[in-house]
């Protein structure tokens, strides 16, 4: 039969695949061919895997096609479309082959298609939310499913007794109960498929979804018990069997959960030791989870529960243990597998329905079942919610109940279970199959289609997706502690108390046992959020940078033109700023032509967006190790840079500088002055979140980078102290000047003093090349022409009097007189930081922060690799007090010039 159906789909591709094979064929031993076969057809050898691959391919292609039209997918859930597609495909196969061929095999479904979906949902289950609502979820899953099964079964039996079901449906009460047990369970696959597109609030989602996952145990038990009762025959069932049935409920559910937890433990423990074989980390996750599934299945425990618990339990430790890349790999593979399985399930469901030889229709049964499952679901939900609301402090309101009853979708689990029935024992199997198909189709298609409008119409509280903020995380943590404390004070050991106890236990023993030491050390939720936020900022910053670049349509200036620009700006400066009063740095900067400014923007974009050129590439080609590539190092750099920026801008808040809407733009004080003199177009950019739309913002980046380097110098200092910075600095500068002639990325930070001036920051090449005059420091005043000295002094003194960021202050001030600066800010609490360098405070803390962060994710080897790169930049900053070093550099530069 396969042969008949296959030409349809398989042939063209199979031909293409086979065309490449002949080259290998002659080598294979076999009976000597009559001649040298140029072409041999070997369909049978590849048939099974080929078919599987083909089906998945068809399903994926269908998915692509569906999503070509946004309009369709926004109205119709994907699961509906897939079922319909399945129906069409099944129809085609039926038409061609005259016999339905493919269908959802229960074995395939339970062993291969279901586990990825369940693992995915368990692993990515929001555990906090899940446990917060565990009581409700368990109630609905256990009581609700039992209720549904018994009432539906009994009602159908009643229907039959009433004569509304055709007499040819031969079924007794037990048969109907069996049918009720398999049709009553809400299906996780269907629920997930539909609810993911309807964004109801999280509580509602977790209740419906959690129920659909946890009710598996109940379904399995009910199904097995009823099945064995039916097989035994109603006459032979004894009282002890009922008791055994009840006991098996506990055995199956608790056993399944236990199996899952044991495997979660094993998994976490294993990943602790994978440091040297990172490449198998994702594999381990899948293997052990699958092993949990199979083990539970083998012991006829609830396999779904096992995998859910495994995913739920291991996630925290596994995520901490495995590398960042493995984490991504796990995530994507899991999502891919789950989505793939889901697609195939729905498509096969559609195809299976075409096979009319398997089912027999009875309108009374079908309509009765449809009515009863809807009715009893609703009734059950209302009753249970009423009961739960007596205890719940946040009651579930009527709208929630409507959505919950309407969201009780049935799916492939029911179908697979009904296919598994034994026709000799259950004579009405065909009728049950038909009914199940109708029920599944009705719930998935009709309810799936209508639930979105319903949710909209009822104005169900939707999930608000707001970004996590650090404050929120902090507050919620404080909050948990407070609640636990209050429970303790009241003497009522409730949920919060036990959660707190669990967390302490986890911290003390479990985490220590299951987490890699390096991971454990920095493992903290608050820190995680902080880290994530920083990463996000950094990414969006880079994105914005790219955006500015493209939208501004900047052209890359060639090196010579840029040089000339710089020169003209210097001459401009000398010519135009004769009126010494306005000779301050900002003026110098803004006097330049627009083109020059563009250059500046460009430069800083590159400074921020590009990364230090790496000279050392490890040519590694190993199957077992993935070398951490430049990308990752760059990410790290962005992170450091960004962290610096956040703190920098915060510092300036303290330093009395305004904060505009966007975080990284605290430098408006400086800008204001600039704006006064500059042309009008040079106004504040539109407020952007994290962008760097104009030069001022860019200034900040570079500056933060400088700081970052100064910090990293402190981190690295311990490691390589012996290096003489003068030599390195010169060689570095020279080398960079020669090698990367055109777009050397930020040479200046290596040789400039701790807090560079605005001019420098905007045009760092100035300091590296010609014009020390632009450079405001005590040294450079000497270079400025004598007639301009008064102007300098004025501007410097005006800067001093202003409460301005360290950026706009002459570096000598910050470097030599840190205390007066501290005095400038009355708001700063005097005991803020004990060390004398408070005024440009953050470096020490940052250095630490940066270090512990880098420990968090970086391998030591990688850090060592980074060190030379990071270390050499900043030996200027090693000692803020030693003027010597500074002078050395100055000399060097002079010599070079």
């Amino acid at each position, binding site marked *: 039969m396969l042969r008949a159906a296959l030409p349809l789909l398989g042939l063209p591709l199979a031909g293409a695949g086979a065309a490449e094979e002949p080259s290998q064929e002659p080598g294979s031993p076999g009976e000597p061919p009559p001649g040298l076969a140029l072409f041999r057809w070997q369909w049978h050898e590849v048939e099974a895997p080929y078919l599987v691959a083909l089906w998945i391919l068809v399903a994926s292609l269908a998915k692509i096609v569906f999503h070509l039209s946004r309009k369709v997918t926004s109205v119709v859930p994907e699961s509906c479309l897939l079922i319909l597609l399945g129906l069409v495909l099944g129809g085609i196969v039926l038409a061609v082959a005259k016999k339905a061929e493919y269908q959802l095999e229960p074995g395939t479904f339970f062993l291969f298609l279901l586990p990825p979906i369940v693992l995915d949902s368990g692993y990515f289950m929001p555990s906090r939310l899940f446990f917060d609502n565990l009581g409700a979820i368990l109630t609905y899953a256990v009581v609700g499913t039992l209720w549904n099964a018994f009432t539906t079964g009994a009602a159908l039996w009643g229907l039959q007794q009433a004569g509304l079901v055709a007499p040819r449906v031969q079924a007794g009460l037990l048969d109907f109960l069996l049918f009720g047990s398999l049709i009553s369970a809400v299906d996780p696959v269907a629920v997930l498929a539909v609810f993911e597109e309807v964004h109801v609030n999280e509580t509602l989602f977790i209740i419906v979804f959690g129920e659909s996952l946890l009710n598996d145990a109940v379904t399995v038990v009910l199904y097995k018990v009823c099945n064995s009762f039916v097989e035994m025959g109603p006459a032979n069932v004894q009282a002890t069997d009922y008791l055994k049935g009840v006991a098996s409920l506990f055995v199956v559910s608790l056993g399944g959960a236990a199996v899952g937890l044991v495997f979660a433990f094993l998994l976490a423990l294993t990943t602790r030791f994978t440091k040297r074989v990172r490449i198998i980390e994702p594999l381990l996750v899948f293997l052990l989870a699958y092993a949990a599934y199979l083990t539970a299945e083998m012991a006829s425990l609830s396999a779904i529960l096992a995998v859910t618990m495994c995913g739920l339990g291991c996630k925290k430790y596994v995520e901490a243990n495995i590398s960042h890349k493995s984490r991504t790999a796990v995530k994507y593979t899991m999502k891919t597998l789950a989505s793939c399985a889901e697609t195939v399930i729905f498509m096969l469901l559609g195809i299976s329905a075409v096979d009319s030889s398997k089912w027999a229709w009875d309108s009374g049964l079908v309509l009765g079942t449809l009515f009863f499952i809807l009715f009893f679901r609703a009734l059950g939900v209302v009753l249970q919610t009423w009961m739960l609301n007596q205890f719940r402090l946040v009651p579930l309101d009527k709208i929630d109940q409507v959505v919950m009853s309407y969201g009780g979708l049935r799916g492939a689990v029911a179908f697979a279970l009904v296919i598994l029935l034994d026709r000799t024992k259950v004579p009405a199997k065909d009728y049950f199959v038909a009914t199940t198909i109708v029920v599944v189709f009705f719930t998935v298609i009709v309810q799936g289609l209508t639930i979105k409008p319903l949710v909209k119409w009822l104005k169900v509280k939707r999930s608000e997706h707001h970004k996590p903020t650090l404050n929120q995380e902090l507050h919620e943590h404080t909050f948990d502690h407070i609640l636990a404390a209050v429970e303790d004070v009241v003497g009522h050991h409730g949920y919060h108390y036990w959660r707190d106890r669990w967390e302490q236990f986890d911290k003390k023993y479990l985490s220590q046992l299951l987490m890699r030491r390096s991971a454990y050390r920095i493992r903290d939720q608050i820190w995680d959020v902080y880290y994530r936020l920083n990463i996000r900022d950094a990414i969006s910053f880079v994105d914005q940078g790219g955006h500015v670049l493209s939208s501004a349509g900047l052209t890359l200036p060639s090196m010579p033109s840029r040089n000339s620009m710089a020169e003209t700006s210097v001459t401009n400066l000398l010519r135009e700023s004769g009126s010494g009063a306005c000779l301050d740095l900002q003026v110098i900067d803004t006097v330049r032509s627009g083109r020059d400014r563009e250059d500046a923007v460009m430069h800083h974009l590159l400074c921020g967006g590009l990364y230090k050129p790496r000279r050392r590439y490890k040519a590694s080609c190993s199957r077992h190790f993935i070398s951490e590539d430049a990308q990752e190092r760059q990410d790290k750099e962005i992170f450091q840079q960004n962290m610096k920026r956040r703190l920098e801008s915060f510092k300036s808040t*303290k330093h009395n500088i305004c904060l505009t809407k966007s975080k990284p733009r605290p430098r408006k004080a400086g800008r204001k002055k600039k704006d006064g003199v500059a042309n009008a177009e040079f106004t504040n950019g539109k407020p952007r979140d994290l962008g760097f739309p104009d030069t001022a913002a860019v200034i900040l980046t570079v500056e933060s980078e400088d700081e970052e380097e100064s910090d990293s110098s402190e981190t690295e200092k311990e490691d390589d102290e012996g290096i003489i910075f003068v030599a390195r600095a010169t060689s570095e500068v020279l080398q960079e000047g020669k090698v990367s002639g055109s777009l050397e990325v930020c040479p200046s930070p290596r040789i400039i003093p701790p807090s560079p001036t605005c001019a420098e920051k905007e045009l760092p090449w100035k300091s590296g090349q010609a014009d020390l005059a632009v450079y405001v420091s005590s040294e450079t005043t000497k270079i400025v022409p004598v007639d301009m000295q008064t102007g300098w002094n004025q501007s410097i003194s005006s800067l001093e009097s202003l409460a301005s960021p360290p950026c706009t202050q002459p570096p000598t001030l910050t470097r030599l007189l840190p205390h007066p600066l501290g005095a400038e800010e009355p708001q700063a609490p005097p005991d803020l930081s004990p060390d004398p360098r408070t005024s440009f405070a953050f470096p020490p803390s940052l250095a630490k922060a940066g270090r512990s962060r880098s420990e968090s994710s970086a391998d030591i080897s990688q850090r060592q690799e980074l060190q030379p790169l990071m270390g050499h930049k900043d030996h200027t900053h090693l000692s803020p007090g030693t003027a010597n070093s500074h002078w050395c550099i100055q000399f060097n530069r002079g010599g070079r010039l």
Partner: protein
Amino acid sequence: MGAAPSASAEVRELEGKTGFSSEQIEQLHRRFKQLSGDQPTIRNLRKGPRGLAEEINFEDFLTIMSYFRPIDVTMGEEHVTQSRKEKLRFLFHMYDSDSDGRITLEEYRNVVEELLSGNPHIEKESARSIADGAMMEAASVCVGQMEPDQVYDGITFEDFLKIWQGIDIETKMHVRFLNMETIALCH
């Protein structure tokens, strides 16, 4: 106060003040006596640096606990926002240790340090930098545009409300005072 609130008038007064039922008040009183060792007040044993009350009596105790009552959603929108505000004010005072109406950076840092103190591997500096980051974020959330010479010197209560926007505290800040029979008597 603090004597047995058996006098029903007294209980009723407390009921009106705190919103607890008389049963709950009785249970809380039992607990209170247990904690205080049958004294009328609970004394503060830890010598706090500043602003800490020396002792609290039963009414204070009840008042504090009443912040953790669940919000009665049926009472209407206004009531909900009102009690939300009250709960938040209570929280705010927990941060604002010198009760000057502002959570200053220093205070915030202390809180974060305490929060992270459970993990010995996180240094004080990183706790600080987290607090700094959070403060910065708070500033950017709360004060969109600042004058150049304006200083953001702490989170005021209004800002605090803004930060908590979107977190439905009213559904979270509660402790079960129902079924208080399960009081753990061992201590």
